[in-house]
């Protein structure tokens, strides 16, 4: 189903698509600041690679698999818009604006997963995983939820901007990968604190900023629902941040900046499916619950001993579930075309639907990701060597270091340059020290 858009709607959707595209680098910095200095570039690169790979896949067949004519509610016809065939001649901007907007969702979903396996996986395995997971998990699930005729959406499950298709989906995959890949050396006994909290705060800020496009752009029009989603995205996030900080203050004695950043993301995740269905006070409540729940949930990994390094499970899976289920309670029937939540006298119907949608997507993601992860483990292997992990994955996988702030030269001898052979070098450079 391709929507018709007037110029105001088109402006808003293209703006939103740009905002959401920025979220992936935002995530890269958010994640990158949280790992140790020796792994910052690899962490950033896992997200950037998703922009490259999923960006290309989306144009080739991803859009078609998600938005093509439904084959039994399970998958869009991958051949229908192969290479976006036919869309360039459509004079209505709706088609290509939809391609634009959808691409950014696919990209970030894959990138989200990477936080669970920081500092220890082969870049090549991550690349292959991205291709397979996007194809076998994301594109189908996106079709189920949003595709015309997709089976989850058809049931009446509400997922405004991706609580199920994106956050539960990615969070479940993250849990599987964390377990299959195994913990970082030293997990649980050595503190691994964020190396650059200013990057984390910047990343959180870019995420929040971009998320206005994510949520309010999902109205696919510049209308009252978009404005409502915007306000809900503000207030739920604000409340979640406060919730997380209060938990920290009471429990740990200090409210941290990492807590603020985490609370922001928890709130954003929570409100994502619900942004078009709740009134602002309902959103405030949802945000508060999401912030508090996730603040506790991030500790589960120590309890159950899986190294979900940057808390993708604790924030995205848990936050996604909170948001998706609370719609069943808080959906405000005063909003046009909306469901009615339990608290507004709507009974358990919507709540049941929400649970069905959420757990179906989660179950599929868990199983499919497990199969992919085990296959890759057998074929390519996931982990870099222990020496490389200890020495730093940036050097091992990318031959680079994140920072060089020293005024001293510690290096020498240009050995090879790209269009040169050794013979091209000046005599001095050849002999070296």
């Amino acid at each position, binding site marked *: 189903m391709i929507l018709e858009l007037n110029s105001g709607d088109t402006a808003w959707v293209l703006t939103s698509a740009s905002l959401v595209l920025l979220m992936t680098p935002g995530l890269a910095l958010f994640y990158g600041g949280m790992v140790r200095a020796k792994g910052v570039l690899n962490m950033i690169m896992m997200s950037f690679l998703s922009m490259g790979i999923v960006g290309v896949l989306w144009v080739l067949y991803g859009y078609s698999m998600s938005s093509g004519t439904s084959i039994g509610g399970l998958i869009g016809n991958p051949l229908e818009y192969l290479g976006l065939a036919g869309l360039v001649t459509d004079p209505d901007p709706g088609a290509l604006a939809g391609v634009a907007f959808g691409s950014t969702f696919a990209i970030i979903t894959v990138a989200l997963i990477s936080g669970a396996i920081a500092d220890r996986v082969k870049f090549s395995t991550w690349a292959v995983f991205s291709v397979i997971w996007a194809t076998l998990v994301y594109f189908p699930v996106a079709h189920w939820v949003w595709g015309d005729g997709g089976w989850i959406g058809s049931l009446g499950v509400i997922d405004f901007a991706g609580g199920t298709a994106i956050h539960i989906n990615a969070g479940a995959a993250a849990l599987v990968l964390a377990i299959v890949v195994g913990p970082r050396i030293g997990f649980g006994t*050595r503190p691994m604190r964020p190396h650059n909290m200013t990057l984390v705060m910047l990343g959180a800020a870019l995420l929040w900023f971009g998320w206005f496009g994510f949520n309010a752009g999902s109205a696919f029009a510049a209308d009252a629902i978009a404005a409502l989603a915007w306000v809900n995205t503000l207030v739920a996030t604000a409340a979640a941040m406060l919730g997380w900080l209060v938990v920290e203050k009471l429990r740990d004695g200090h409210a941290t900046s990492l807590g603020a950043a985490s609370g922001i993301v928890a709130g954003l995740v929570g409100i994502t499916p619900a942004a078009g269905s709740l009134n602002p006070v309902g959103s405030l409540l949802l945000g508060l619950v999401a912030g508090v729940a996730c603040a506790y949930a991030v500790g589960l990994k120590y309890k159950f001993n899986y190294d979900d390094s940057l808390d993708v499970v604790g924030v995205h899976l848990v936050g996604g579930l909170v948001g998706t289920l609370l719609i069943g309670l808080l959906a405000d029937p005063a909003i046009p075309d909306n469901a009615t939540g339990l608290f507004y006298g709507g009974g358990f119907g919507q709540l049941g639907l929400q649970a069905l949608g959420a757990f179906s997507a989660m179950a599929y993601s868990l199983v499919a990701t497990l199969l992919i992860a085990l296959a890759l483990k057998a074929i390519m292997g996931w982990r870099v060597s222990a020496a490389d992990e*200890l*020495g730093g994955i940036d*050097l091992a996988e990318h*031959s*680079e*270091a994140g920072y060089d702030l020293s005024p001293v030269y*510690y*290096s*020498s*001898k*240009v*050995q*090879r*340059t*790209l*269009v040169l052979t050794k013979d091209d070098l000046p005599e001095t450079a050849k002999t070296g*020290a």
Partner: protein
Amino acid sequence: MKLVTAIIQPEQLENVQKALVRHGVAGMTITEVSGYGRQRGHVEVYRGAEYTIDFIAKVKVEVLVDDAEAETLVGVILQGARTGSVGDGKIWVVDVGIVVRVRTGESGSGAI
């Protein structure tokens, strides 16, 4: 009194620290340094130009001890720091005249 200085691998600091503390050492001072030696530095790539980092991150540990303790302590550090691979570092010992604790002004063994 003696000043025992050890250049060790950064990853071994935790071990060395634990070993020293278990041995009864109450204090030490550490410095981030860079070492050149038999161990080869890693190679970095910058837009296709390759170069080696000659100097490798190391940690210097300095411990003041009574004369009698010095040799034992070298053994303790050796134990904690050794991984068996090239680049494990060096330990050396220097004679120290005066030692004073700034807070109290007391000197000699009591200052350590």
